[in-house]
């Protein structure tokens, strides 16, 4: 069973957490990324995630493997949602079970940080003004490769 999954429905948080139960673990850390109502001064109404699933799953599994090896935790899993979602909905969840809290916190942090920069996932913000924009476009516009 894949430990990194993509869904286009509401993430089933209770089932996700139950899947992380492990009697050898004294610590469980979960991170949820939620849809925020503002970005860079603009009111946001909705978010839309585009995910290239074949590679996102492959790379997501790789990141979870790295976290297990690097921090010696027992279990690590994550789920990312694609498509359109409203304010306060959960876009991504990461869970880590470990014997102790230190490695659980560290591994969870590692996973979410790597997911954000390595997975082929793109975020489009829909604003109260009616406009929609791919996030980061402002920043990448000033960061063109020379030539």
């Amino acid at each position, binding site marked *: 069973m894949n430990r990194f999954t993509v869904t286009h429905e509401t993430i089933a948080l209770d089932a996700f957490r139950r899947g992380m139960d492990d009697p050898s673990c004294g610590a469980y850390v979960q991170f949820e990324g939620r849809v925020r109502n503002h970005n860079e001064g603009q009111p946001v109404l909705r978010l839309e995630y585009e995910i*290239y699933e074949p590679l996102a799953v492959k790379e997501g599994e790789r990141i979870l493997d790295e976290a297990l090896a690097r921090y010696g935790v027992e279990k690590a899993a994550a789920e990312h949602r694609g498509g359109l979602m409203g304010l306060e909905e959960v876009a*991504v969840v990461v869970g880590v079970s470990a014997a102790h809290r230190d490695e659980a916190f560290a591994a969870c942090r590692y996973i979410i940080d790597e997911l954000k920069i390595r*997975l*082929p996932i*793109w*975020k489009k913000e829909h604003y109260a003004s009616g406009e929609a924009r791919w996030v980061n476009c402002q920043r*990448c516009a000033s*960061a063109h*490769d020379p030539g």
Partner: protein
Amino acid sequence: MRVKVRYFAAFRDDAGCSEEFVDSAGSTTGEVFEQCRSRHPGLHRHQASMVAVNDEMAQWDTPLADGDEVLFFPPVAGG
């Protein structure tokens, strides 16, 4: 050499299409991107852009073979 090119997210908007075939004299992912850019002037290779070949992450100097599928990813923003 003929390769299939796919554009994602902002790149799809910039190119005005989601995929196309390219007959290329170039031999790397970067060279094919430049060729696509001459076709679609709105396309720009931002610093954080990524490229994949046949569903494996690749580099901008990865060599290509006839029939490869090249995926152009604008800067990602998961989470």
